[in-house]
């Protein structure tokens, strides 16, 4: 069974981003970029499926600028067998990415596609579901546990108020939640080995996909700042402030 794992290059989660002064977007020049944390969990899960014998090959795919190669090399250092880059400088929105991934999925015929539940830059939480819809496959989002069976996947999902378990017919789409696993640290020998792994490159034109953005970003601005608070000296002062100043109790 082949497993396909889409990965996204995003601003590192530790970076506090700044909005550009012309309100055209967020300034991502010269900031540290990394693999989206949810995608790391997806690569780890696919690698574990391979190590357990449930999967035969893990293919990482990324869509975006040439530097996404680095993200793919990271995926290969974790355990992906090869990489596919759909290279474009165009702004890619989730629907466009889902369409690109659909074409790759139809070329590669995986039985399982594992994506992160959301990217920490656009916070959209759409691509996995959209890909499932375009392929007409089953989906289990926000997975905290995946068990593979004969022609099926049994997935436990994190939902509001608890957990639920679904059984999906393969081929299927799963998106990862934080608690699915703890991604391994990549080791230097594996980074070296990853450099030798196969990496194929396509363009959206090769795949026949129109990636024009459907949503126009009118502006991006800073969120309203909270007015500076105070530090209270002791508990009595705190309770007094809550009762008499904030009037919330």
């Amino acid at each position, binding site marked *: 069974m082949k497993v396909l794992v889409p990965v996204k290059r995003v601003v590192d989660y530790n970076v506090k981003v700044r909005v550009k002064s012309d309100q055209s977007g967020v300034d991502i020049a010269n900031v540290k970029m990394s693999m989206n944390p949810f995608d790391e969990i997806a690569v780890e899960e696919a690698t574990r499926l391979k190590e357990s014998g449930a999967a035969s090959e893990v293919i990482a795919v990324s869509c975006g600028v040439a530097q996404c190669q680095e993200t793919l090399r990271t995926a290969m250092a974790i355990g992906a067998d090869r990489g596919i880059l759909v290279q474009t400088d165009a702004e890619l929105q989730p*629907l466009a990415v889902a369409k690109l991934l659909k074409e790759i999925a139809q070329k590669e015929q995986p039985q399982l596609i594992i994506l992160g*539940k959301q990217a920490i830059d656009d916070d959209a939480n759409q691509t996995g579901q959209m890909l499932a*819809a375009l392929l007409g496959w089953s989906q289990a989002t926000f997975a905290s546990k995946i068990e593979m069976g004969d022609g099926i996947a049994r997935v436990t999902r994190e939902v509001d108020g*608890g*957990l639920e378990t*679904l059984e999906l017919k393969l081929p299927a789409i799963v998106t990862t939640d934080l608690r699915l696993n703890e991604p391994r640290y990549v080791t230097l020998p594996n980074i070296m080995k990853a450099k030798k792994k196969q990496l194929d490159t396509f363009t959206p034109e090769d795949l026949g996909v129109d990636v024009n953005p459907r949503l126009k970003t009118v502006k991006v601005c800073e969120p309203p700042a909270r007015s500076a608070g*105070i530090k209270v000296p002791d*508990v009595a002062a705190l309770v007094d402030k809550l009762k008499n100043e*904030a009037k919330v109790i």
Partner: protein
Amino acid sequence: MTILVIAEHDNVHLKAATLNVAAAAVQIGGEIHVLVAGFNAAGVATEAAKISGVSKVLVADSTALADGLAENVAEQVLALASSYSHILFAATASGKNVSPRVAARLDVAQISEIQAVDSADTFQRPIYAGNAIATVQSTDAIKVITVRTTGFDALAQDGSAVVESIEAVAAVGLSSFIGREVAKSDRPELAGARVVVSGGRGMGSLENFKILDPLADKFGAALGASRAAVDAGYAPNDWQVGQTGKIVAPQLYVAVGISGAIQHLAGMKDSKVIVAVNKDAEAPIFGVSDYGLVADLFTAVPEIVAAL
């Protein structure tokens, strides 16, 4: 312009989130219909019909819709979609699960987690964990949207809409529901609570977390937790407040032993009043708190309980 709001429910009761989504629909403007897709959910339809400003409630009743499977619910919405200009879901686990599936099949972009309506096609949504607010304009014929419930005040339930049964779609048969594990709680639901008391890694253990119980009892508050506390096993998953957990905006948010990582702040910085109790005077949480108390939580929390 007619707007379809997808009701959030458990087949017994309408979830409060639906009232916030309907409020967003009112701001967009136009006739508002609510879809109740479920099984034996007549009670939900009755509650939905009372939402102020809603003119019609459509009820699709089928075992295929009993457990909210994305494949089936999406088909049900798609069967109606062509009559609507906007289709609104709550940005909850179930709304986020189904909505992009509908959007992709309609070949339209989905607009995620709107927190303000500028006009019928322009919306504001947070990006980068709430560190920036993007204003986006949709040119698609049907706008598929998820609504961040904390961005809109819930509508009253004083209306009387028409309830109409519609034909339910057949099960798609791609997935099946196996079981559910519901976390038990006597406290108010986190997302809708007036007061939230949250603990972080500073709580130290699952046992120590109980120190927050009497405080939450005094306030009638929901309990929350930071991701660090959840990952350490001090609190259950569904207590997590943050970018990757629940987004809350209560009247009062009490952060105990929480440093205030970006990912946590994204989930609570729209609270009206924020109180932080932390022994580290340099903790980032004090940058957003209205009232900060630099103290050891193990002495401060019981003192607060005693003083209330």
